[in-house]
């Protein structure tokens, strides 16, 4: 037998009668083209199969919580922009909501509508980009992501003309919003919405029926409902597993109780359901937006009780949460009567959604791990904070 090119292991395996393989440890990341940001997964492979996967965090740990303890309540708002940098308006809202509970403020009617409009536009941005990134992860280099970013720019232009920045809006204030809508802004929203529903049809024609996408996502990374609940998974990932839990319905924060939207629920909890839930959510968001643009009243945008821009609440603690595009975004604040919080804690949805990443990937191939990670939708700014 010619053994000149075989390793001893292969010979042993051949003698045993099977094809033995060595376990291979691969570090995906922190710099790896297929991970989102600087996330790292230490994967142990047997052949192509994953036998162990350990996520490694902290490569973007920017100490939000420590910095928040020395910055005023007002000064924290721009930092929340940088948590989940794809959707800063919702991060703003979560923090402002918690502080409003603490200080006993309430945003007036018009500001509430503006908040809903911004939050739902953010959801559109986030979910479109997610679909683009997921397709990119599955090997569709460029095209879907390019279409997604093309549409994203239209919404970012709206953000920019309203708040002055494309990504880091720093717009919500305790008891309202920073400034009123510029002239013609709502018409701009309507125009973008008209184009967006057409774009969604086109985007779905491009992706949803695509056999490659179906093959790569259906039945991959199944997450069962009971495990999802126990592991604290929230947002579209939870709803894809068939649990009807949307904080816009459960808590009905802001004025969400006025909007009759449906909550899309998945059946299988696989990657395709997670993708599809988001596409359907975008269609519901468009409905919410149309209604909000129709109904928004005139009036003040700041609570009359809010005398100054910053707050100085009495000692006490509060937990405020909203449904960010990624899941339940919570802010836990302990105030001690000083201008900055004693403890400022962020409950990041993307971080906790990664709790059961290993369970979802076990037994699947490396390529599936990339698809699963893409479908969970993480943003590292929020995972590591």
């Amino acid at each position: 037998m010619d053994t000149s090119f075989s390793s001893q292991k292969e010979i042993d395996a051949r003698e045993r009668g099977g094809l033995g393989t060595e376990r291979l440890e691969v570090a995906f990341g922190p710099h790896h083209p297929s991970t989102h940001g600087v996330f790292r997964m230490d994967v142990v492979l047997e052949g192509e199969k994953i036998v162990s996967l350990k996520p490694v965090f902290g490569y973007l740990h920017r100490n939000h919580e420590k910095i928040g303890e020395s910055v005023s309540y007002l000064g924290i708002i721009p930092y929340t922009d940088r948590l989940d940098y794809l959707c800063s308006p919702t991060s703003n809202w979560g923090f402002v909501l918690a502080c409003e509970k603490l200080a006993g403020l309430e945003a007036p009617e018009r500001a509430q509508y503006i908040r809903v409009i911004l939050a739902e536009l953010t959801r559109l941005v986030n979910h479109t980009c997610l679909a683009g990134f997921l397709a990119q992860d599955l090997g569709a280099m460029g095209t879907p992501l390019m279409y997604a970013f093309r549409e994203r720019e239209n919404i970012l232009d709206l953000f920019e003309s309203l708040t002055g920045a494309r990504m880091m809006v720093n717009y919500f204030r305790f008891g309202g919003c920073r400034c009123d809508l510029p002239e013609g802004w709502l018409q701009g929203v309507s125009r973008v919405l008209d184009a967006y529903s057409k774009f969604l049809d086109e985007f779905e024609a491009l992706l949803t029926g695509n056999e490659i996408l179906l093959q790569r996502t259906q039945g991959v990374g199944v997450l069962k409902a009971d495990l999802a609940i126990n592991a604290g998974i929230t947002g579209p990932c939870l709803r894809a597993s068939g649990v009807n839990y949307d904080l816009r319905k459960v808590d009905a924060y802001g004025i969400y109780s006025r909007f009759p939207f449906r909550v899309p629920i998945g059946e299988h909890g696989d990657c395709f359901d997670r993708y599809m839930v988001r596409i359907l959510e975008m269609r519901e968001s468009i409905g919410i937006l149309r209604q909000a643009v129709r109904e928004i009243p005139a009036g003040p945008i700041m609570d009359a009780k809010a005398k100054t821009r910053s707050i100085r609440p009495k000692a006490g603690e509060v937990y405020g949460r909203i449904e960010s595009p990624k899941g339940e975004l919570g802010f836990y604040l302990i105030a001690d009567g000083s201008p900055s919080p004693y403890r400022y804690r962020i409950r990041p949805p993307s971080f906790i959604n990664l709790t059961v990443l290993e369970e979802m990937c076990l037994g699947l191939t490396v390529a599936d791990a990339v698809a699963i990670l893409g479908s969970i939708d993480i943003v590292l700014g929020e995972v590591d904070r």
Partner: protein
Amino acid sequence: MSVLSDSLIEDLKKQGVLVTSIEALYNWGRSNSVWPLQFGLACCAIEMIAASMARFDLSRFGSEVFRPSPRQADLMIVSGTVTKKMAPQVVRLFNQMPDPKYVIAMGACAISGGPFKQGYNVLKGVDRFIPVDIYIPGCPPRPEALLHGLMELQKKIRAQKLTGENRAKYFDAAQPGEYPIPSFGEHDLEPSKNAALWSPAQVARKD
């Protein structure tokens, strides 16, 4: 280009005669095919992606070829906060890039730590460990600002000399192409900066 003066070259160009030197041709080619490393760190990476997409279209400058491997890249766009946990990897990636190589520090965090600079895990500027050619302030810089920074880099590349006293650094075998990688210490990175590379200006404050 000592034989022909600049004005003469301009005059010739008007007559339809294109005159160039090896140096200018070489730099022209290099500056228009700066391939960045596909590598994003934080918020600025999203703006970097936006810059490479349809609206701002980085490929008009020959830089759309984002290379997944540092071995094929000319340019490292440090787009986002470099944390202390990430710093050794960034330096290692830089070391793996072949010469000539350039670094753009994109955004406040990459330049100085930016808004997060008082954080215990945030590196106060990537230039503590690797040399930076262009700094683009902004948080995050607009995609156009990145394009502007890239154009500044192209200008810099075009001005590099191939021969003589002031020739580009990478022709000099004595110049380091690699920089020491910091290691994780018990309280901080060790060392916390590359003292040979980074010499901050002393700002005198009376009070």
